[in-house]
């Protein structure tokens, strides 16, 4: 492949996503221009240009949010737009009609509370992707909903007039420098205002990244990386330019005093000086917030890693399952957790009657308790214990009887006897294996001693057996256990036992 062709394909594929992300902020504007007012009230207000209205509203929000540093409530927007409609479109309809139109425009600008979704193809990953953008954002503050312009909104507004450069702040600073040198101090204040709005935009952008991080950590981290690359790398340069400009303003002030400038010019320089200092403070605050943002992002990443394997709940699926069960009472458990706590305790009217008929203490009669038999409860583990004792007693009896007949006996022989007596079912009986485990705990048993002083659970069973034996045959029985781990007794699929030799002592 030729180099030119390679570069061409690289440009098309690799840069496509970045271009689309950049285009995203323009998307709401064209959508708003395209089909907004021709559908409202049979197109009665079609002559009102949505493009103009959008730009005007954005400018109004920049003025309020960035320059006056305050949030906008719906009433502020309503007043602004009503004035605009009357001034620029000779809108003369009554209050209700204008309120409805203004609200309709607002819903369009906020896209009914949802972001504008912009779909594009990612040729690298070969899939469709969705970008989100908003012009206006809402937040709940001190009992009312406040609106503010989003960072995309500011960026869109600024880019419609100014070309995009590496750092807008730096460009504006250079412009400011020129203005100060040419003694255009009033123009300088305007430039500072533009710097402020850029700082506000970056501030908003970092806020949006925090929100994005909490929604989707990966998208958030990606946005943070882009933000750090594009927005923050110019901090040093910007700060130096700020210092240079402050120096220039100081010099201008000095010269103004020496050369006795007009009082109005003096005032303008003072004002410029003040505004520049304010802008520097804001710039400093931005740097601080951005440093915190990185720390915050790291913490969020850590938290996300910890909860990565937590499964989310599919709300639709839960409802579908509840509807399949067809019991509306399930809805209570599904929704009641959302409700607040009931802290106001109420008194039931039913209890009022009890109070009215409340008798004094001496009239009170105790609750009659009918005589009855006391019930004894048998717990599950007690039933189990009785069963185990019974089974062990049966197994021990066979062992003792065989030992009384023979001097020596192996487990393989004993096992054969057990199978003969209890059939194959013994192989599936857990108590049998438990018995062998208990039995192998010691290598010597003296039943005379065990009868008086049983040491283990199995010895207790042995003692019971000895005491219950009328012929007192077992009392003098003593035997040792010799373990033969090399000899295996095959139990088929159930594994194997290792052999033991039981040897009677004395007698």
């Amino acid at each position, binding site marked *: 492949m030729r180099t030119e062709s390679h570069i061409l394909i690289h440009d098309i594929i690799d840069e496509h996503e970045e271009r689309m992300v950049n285009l995203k902020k323009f998307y709401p504007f064209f959508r708003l221009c395209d089909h907004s007012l021709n559908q409202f009230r049979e197109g009665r207000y079609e002559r009102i240009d949505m493009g103009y209205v959008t730009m005007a509203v954005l400018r109004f929000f920049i003025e309020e949010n960035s320059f006056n540093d305050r949030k906008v409530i719906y009433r502020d927007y309503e007043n602004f737009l009503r004035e605009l409609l009357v001034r620029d479109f000779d809108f003369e309809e009554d209050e209700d009609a204008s309120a409805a139109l203004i609200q309709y425009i607002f819903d369009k600008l906020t896209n*009914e509370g949802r972001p504008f979704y912009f779909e594009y193809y990612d040729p690298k990953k070969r899939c469709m992707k969705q970008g989100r953008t908003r012009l206006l954002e809402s937040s709940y503050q001190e009992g009312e909903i406040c609106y503010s312009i989003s960072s995309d909104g500011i960026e869109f507004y600024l880019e419609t007039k100014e070309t995009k450069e590496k750092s807008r702040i730096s460009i504006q600073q250079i412009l400011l420098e020129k203005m100060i040198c040419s003694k255009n101090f009033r123009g300088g204040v305007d430039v500072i205002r533009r710097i402020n709005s850029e700082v506000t935009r970056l501030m908003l952008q970092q806020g949006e990244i925090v929100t994005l991080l909490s*929604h989707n950590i990966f998208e958030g981290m990606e946005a943070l990386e882009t933000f750090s690359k594009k927005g923050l790398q110019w901090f040093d340069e910007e700060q130096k330019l700020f210092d240079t400009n402050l120096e220039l303003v100081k010099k201008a002030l000095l010269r103004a005093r020496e050369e006795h400038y007009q009082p109005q010019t003096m005032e303008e320089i003072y004002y410029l000086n003040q505004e520049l200092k304010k802008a520097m403070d804001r710039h400093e605050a931005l740097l601080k917030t951005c440093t915190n943002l990185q720390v915050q992002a790291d913490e969020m990443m850590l938290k996300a890693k910890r909860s990565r394997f937590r499964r989310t709940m599919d709300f639709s699926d839960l409802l579908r399952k509840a509807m399949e069960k067809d019991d509306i009472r399930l*809805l209570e458990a599904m929704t009641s957790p959302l409700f607040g706590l009931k802290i106001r305790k109420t008194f039931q009217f039913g209890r009022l009657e009890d109070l009215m008929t409340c008798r004094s203490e001496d009239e009170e009669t105790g609750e009659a308790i009918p005589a009855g038999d006391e019930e004894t409860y048998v717990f599950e583990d007690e039933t189990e214990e009785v069963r185990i004792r019974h089974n062990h007693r049966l197994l021990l009896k066979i062992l003792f009887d065989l030992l009384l007949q023979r001097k020596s006996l192996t487990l393989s022989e004993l096992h054969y006897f057990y199978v003969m007596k209890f059939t194959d079912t013994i192989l599936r009986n857990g108590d049998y294996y438990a018995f062998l485990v208990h039995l192998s705990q010691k290598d010597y048993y003296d039943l005379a001693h065990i009868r008086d002083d049983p040491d283990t659970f199995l010895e207790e069973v042995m003692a019971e057996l000895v005491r219950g034996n009328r012929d007192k045959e077992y009392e003098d029985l003593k035997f040792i256990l010799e373990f033969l781990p090399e000899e295996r007794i095959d139990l088929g699929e159930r594994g194997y036992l290792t052999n033991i030799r039981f040897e009677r002592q004395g007698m």
Partner: protein
Amino acid sequence: MDHGNLDKAMEIFTLLIVGEEVSSAQHVDLYEAYQNNSEVYDILMSILKKSNLSLYEFGSSLYVTAGDGNRVFGFTNDELKRVIGLRLNRELYLAYFIIYNIILLFYQDSGTFSYTDYVRCEEVITQTDSSMQKALKALHGQALNAVEENSFQTLASLWEDMPLVPSNEDMASLKAARGSKTGFVKLVFNFLVSQDLFFESQGRYYVKPRFRALAENYYEENRGRLYSIVTGGDRDASY
């Protein structure tokens, strides 16, 4: 145990149960104690556990919920009917159904918020209509007296019988009332606003952080339990 820490934990607990905000903006010292002092955190969690309450943190703010079946802090069905302004049990269950559908407008699952700022009554009605479709189809194939009391068809019939708006009122001036779909949804929203879950402005219902805190955390944490309830493994529904 340090008495100062016990005091702080109790103070946070008291504020939370009376519905006051403990966050990085309000009662900052207490929020910081919760964040940075492990003893305060442990005591608070222990008190909450004993009170059968769950605590969730969202956007540097703390929220509590009684979950379901909490006899001390939870509402009984009768109390809820009184608070919302309903008379019949099936109306209450319809309200629950609508509330759940409101969640669906914001979330497909607890991990993905739809980025929607607000919803209007009309959207809730459309969503409820669509969720009710299956029950409605079943209802149309049945004789009315054959509908079981606790079946979703009861809700479908109640919902279907309601007009969108009462014939004598227009949409804008419509009050919250049981007689129409829009009025009913407004009634439900009034309750949700009183529970600090939504904020109303010009007919738009904006979601508040408490709603998001619970929707994103409670359901995720109790996922298994909720599934076993709806599939009938855990307990009978007639609590």
